[in-house]
């Protein structure tokens, strides 16, 4: 019996509760007339879409900067990359690569500035990250109005200047990753390209944490005093982790858009950090430790719930409760993590 107990202990209660909840959804799906095939492929598509955004959480958590509520900063870099690539009318694979090539350096630059703030406010990063993220989103709203974009697809019909709220990536690089070697079997659609890209990013981050700098970064997160005593520049490590997180956020949003089909500007990215934070916490990460498995498990569980609840529950009790369940589950998870007794290092 105690083997079960310590399995529960290390796997953690929330994951088990939500895991069982998800299982029940999958089981009841056929009885409620929901084709399991489509809902599974829906889940997989959403996992591919959001995976990299959840992965963007790992570097900052590992280096002790806490949960990256400032993800919108990375997302903005991604949006700039996407809009410029659409502006120049780049098509297909070249289009998305061009978007990446702009988004990543911008992400690193934003990450660097963002890190300077975070390094000065050790101990209260999360709240400040939230509002730095919000104010940068609001700042970008003004920029979207003023930036000299001219491609007809993007600007408001009458005004002539300022971008539309949502821009379709159709005809540019829509589904370019998802459809690459994708498998379509009856109602089941598997976006192999996107998953390959997701696995690629996972390996890149996994590999990074096995290098010398990666190891140093983990040490900074685990015990900054120890790291300092071993001659590591703690602030430099934190800066690298923030830059990495922001760049990953930029990549993640582009992957999200190529599958979603639209680029959401203006206030779109405002609340995008919370689902990613909830997902990685659901995967078992704590406020100062996160692993690659946390990302995969968390994204599957979280997106699973998001896809299954609308179809199954709605058919079950004829009401659309999915929005409420999403809010309660994701914020419940973050609340659970925040009230854990973690060693306050600072």
């Amino acid at each position, binding site marked *: 019996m105690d083997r079960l107990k310590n399995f529960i202990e290390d796997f953690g209660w929330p994951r088990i509760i939500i895991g069982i909840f998800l299982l029940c959804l999958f089981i009841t799906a056929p009885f409620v007339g929901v084709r399991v095939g489509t809902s599974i492929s829906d889940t997989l598509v959403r996992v591919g879409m959001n995976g990299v955004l959840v992965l963007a959480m790992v570097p900052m958590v590992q280096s002790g900067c806490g949960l990256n509520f400032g993800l919108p900063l990375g997302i903005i870099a991604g949006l700039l990359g996407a809009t410029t690539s659409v502006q120049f009318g780049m098509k297909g694979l070249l289009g998305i690569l061009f978007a990446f090539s702009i988004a990543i350096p911008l992400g690193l630059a934003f990450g660097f500035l963002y890190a300077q703030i975070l390094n000065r406010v050790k101990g209260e990063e999360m709240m400040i990250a939230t509002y730095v993220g919000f104010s940068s989103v609001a700042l970008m709203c003004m920029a979207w109005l003023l930036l000299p974009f001219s491609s007809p697809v993007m600007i408001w019909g009458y005004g002539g200047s300022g971008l539309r*709220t949502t821009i379709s990536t159709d005809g540019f690089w829509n589904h370019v990753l998802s459809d690459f070697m994708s498998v379509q079997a009856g109602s089941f659609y598997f976006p192999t390209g996107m998953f390959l890209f997701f696995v690629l990013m996972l390996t890149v981050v996994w590999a990074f944490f096995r290098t010398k700098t990666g190891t140093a970064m983990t040490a900074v997160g685990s015990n900054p005093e120890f790291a300092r005593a071993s001659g590591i520049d703690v602030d430099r490590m934190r800066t690298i982790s923030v830059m990495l997180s922001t760049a990953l956020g930029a990549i993640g949003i582009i992957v999200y858009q190529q599958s979603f089909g639209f680029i959401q500007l*203006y*206030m*779109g990215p*405002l*609340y995008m950090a919370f689902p990613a934070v909830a997902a990685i916490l659901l995967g078992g990460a704590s406020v100062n430790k996160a692993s690659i498995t946390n990302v995969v498990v968390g994204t599957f569980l979280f997106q699973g719930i998001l896809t299954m609840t609308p179809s199954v529950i709605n058919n079950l009790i004829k009401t659309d409760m999915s*929005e409420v369940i999403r809010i309660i589950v994701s914020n419940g998870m973050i609340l659970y993590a925040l009230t854990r007794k973690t060693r306050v290092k600072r």
Partner: protein
Amino acid sequence: MSQAPMRIRRFIIRTVLILLLIVLGMAMYNIGREYSVLLDNGTVTIDGREYPVIAYGSLIIDGDERKAIDIWEDDRLLQKLVGTSHTLRVLVLDEDDDSAQKTAERKIEMDFDTREWMISLAAIAGESERILIPNPIYIGEQETAPLDDEIQDDADGIPEF
């Protein structure tokens, strides 16, 4: 054991205060409740007696002369009355010189469901014992067409404050 009586005294005071709050709530409910009442002016027969329609008259609610309302034949007035007890004074006027041929006053209690019953002005004018007559239409539904706006997604709306 000086603690016990003091604690009991304090417990009593607290329960009394909470009860007071509840009573205050109920009082507010009664004072502030607003009824939408239909007042009908048409020939009506109650308990076998017929009361003729008021060709032309005026209705004064709660003695407020300035807000007197003209009554024409076959009018059906919708009035919002706040509070449970009111006085309705009906004046039957001569069409030419506006002189009051007949005045009748009636105190009413809002203890009936305003959607099932409406008040007949003719009955009041005819000093009838019962003045409530069945209300053919449900008032509530028609008053404002239910507008079905789904929840506005807060992410893209500009916060208005």
